[in-house]
């Protein structure tokens, strides 16, 4: 009989909503459990496992020295690592703090308690340890997660769609938000979410990160046609993608920000 792979979930700096997407699978989850041995999942399990993880699913960004040490330890014990959700894959909303002076933001939020905390510039997991698979999204889109998990279990690659959200949005026959007088990050954001937000009447906030080769000229034309300033769009992009611009900035300011 084939050995059942040991799978574990770990959360770092995040809201744990992506883990929750697993319990939201309903009875399908029980089908999934036939193919893997869930050995750790702190949000819903007290069990611990001290062996090697065949697959470690990592939720959250790396934002403290403790996070750095912990992810390195987990990496050493894991055959395959899946970065799970925007916080893990691109830094996500946690990246917004990188645009601030870390000393100042600590002071603002924690006041006199600030001295109890240590914080580093936010980094996605792959900037600290090697990662084999990426599941983008805030939160992850369950059908894509199941697809990635299947690939990881079979040991075959998963290719993240590298076309714009607009492609899926067109299939879903949504009216373009630029036509409706709004701005939307769909034209430069990776597809794979089935244009989830736009289907529900909201704009794309860019949670899956940028496509690797955006159609820059085409997008600039769109912005010009609708009279949108580029800076306005860049500011919107910084909600999820601030780590992209500030990559290396942390090193300039000194690798560690301790008090």
């Amino acid at each position, binding site marked *: 009989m084939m050995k059942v792979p040991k799978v574990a979930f770990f959360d770092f700096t995040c809201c744990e909503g992506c883990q929750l997407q697993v319990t939201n699978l309903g009875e399908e989850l029980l089908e999934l459990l036939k193919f893997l041995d869930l050995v750790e999942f*702190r949000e819903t399990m007290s*069990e611990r496992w001290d062996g090697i993880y065949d697959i470690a699913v990592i939720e959250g960004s790396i934002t403290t020295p403790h996070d750095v040490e912990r992810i390195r330890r987990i990496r050493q014990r894991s055959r395959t690592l899946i970065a799970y959700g925007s916080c893990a894959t691109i830094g996500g909303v946690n990246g*917004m703090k990188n645009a601030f002076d870390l000393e100042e933001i600590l002071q603002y939020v924690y006041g006199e308690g600030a001295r109890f905390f240590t914080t580093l510039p936010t980094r996605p997991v792959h900037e600290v340890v090697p990662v084999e698979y990426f599941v983008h999204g*805030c939160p992850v889109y369950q059908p894509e997660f199941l697809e990635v998990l299947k690939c990881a279990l079979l040991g075959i690659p998963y290719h993240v769609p590298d076309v714009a959200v607009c492609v899926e949005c067109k299939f879903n026959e949504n009216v373009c938000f630029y036509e409706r007088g709004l*701005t939307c990050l769909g034209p430069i954001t990776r597809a794979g979410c089935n244009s989830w937000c736009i289907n529900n009447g909201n704009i794309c906030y860019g949670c899956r990160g940028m496509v690797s080769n955006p159609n820059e000229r085409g997008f600039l034309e769109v912005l010009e046609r609708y009279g949108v300033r580029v800076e306005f769009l860049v500011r919107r992009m910084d909600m999820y993608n601030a780590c992209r611009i500030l990559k290396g900035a942390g090193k300039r300011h000194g690798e560690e920000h301790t008090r």
Partner: protein
Amino acid sequence: MGKSIRVDVEYLTRVEGHGNIVVDVRDGTLRECRLEIIESPRFFEGMLRGRSIFEAQHITSRICGICACAHSLASIQAAEEAIGFVPSEQTVKLRKFLLDIEILDSHILHIYFLVAPDLLGVKSFVPLVETHNAVVRRALRLKKTCNDVCDILVGRHVHPISCTVGGFTKLPRPGDLEKMRSLLLGMIPDLEATVDLVRGFRFPEFERETEYVALVSDDDEYPLLMGDIGSTDGVRLPKKEYRKITNEFVVPHSTAKHTRLNRDSYMVGALARLNLNFSKLHPRAKEIADLFGMNRKVTNPYLNTVAQLVECFHCLYHAVDIVEEFLKTGLNYDEEIVVGLNEKQRIPVRAGSGVGAVEAPRGTLYHHYEVDDYGRIMHANCVIPTGQNLRNIEYDMRKLVPEILDRSEEDIQLALEMLVRAYDPCISCSTHFLNVTFVGRDNPEGS
């Protein structure tokens, strides 16, 4: 010579977020008793500064995956008040409906996945797949149904999409209303079976009366989305004075802030709401409360789980009432909004300050924003239920430990873990640590 024990639970499991329990008893005397929070700081309030008030809901729902809808609703309420926007009656009703589903969903998760394993003597739901397969299936089914209703109403439960400042960007069609109604009614048998399950649980006996805080109102509706802030010690204040309730202060032995109202600590959450607003519960929820003897003031914090079960019934029937009303009257689809970041200035904006106070599953949640003339956020503050409960949990632990000192260390540890879990703490939410005691704590990041 008294007994000496040391309980040190690192990475408390089956709670949302990261916490440690430390108890130190030497020679029969309790020397130390704390619940440490080791969640990495996330700086939401700091990061909001300079962003559009129309982005606040999107960003702050990411504070917590479990109560994303409650954060959204508190955020929207604060934002609308700050810019001077008054939502329509239809919008308010739909938001109440959303909050009902959020509380139902979160309570089910807590009862089945976080609490039940302790009372069934296992470490998690995983072994229950073998031993209590029907129970696990029921739990997953209930959870999934709440999720399906949220998918229809707001696109998804974890980080709702269509519920924004100004109203809803997509309104459910008549077929959607019908579908939500039948999904909700379909939950009733499973919820009734949950009553049988919980009746079989033996909750630890422990009493400690404290001050209970929740939203209160003058009308007949069980207040969850709107109201003043009230306490069982007779406090009643408008939400904009929330700081007088949460009342941060510095204690001599610590530079970290604590909260209290009239006593050493106070409790928020399902049990607090029941203690304050029992008479306004749905009749079926009251019947459930009667079954468990919960129709009086309850001071055993372990019974917060039962209070949640009572609220499950209230929220389910209340949500059904709302959806049935909409099925009768129909929805006004002209209210569907195209808002984005308010690029077209369809929603008038002015400078101001606004407070949102909402009953999240775990208790009263506050968001407070100040915006400038352009709707840019100048200041933000969030006070989350778990932060308010931490101090109360510590006081419970201090009373509980001496009462159970004759038990084995494993039993004491389990009793403490169960106590913390009973409060259903949501530590990721603790963007703003209100009352973490850092006594003798050299390394606040945890090990």
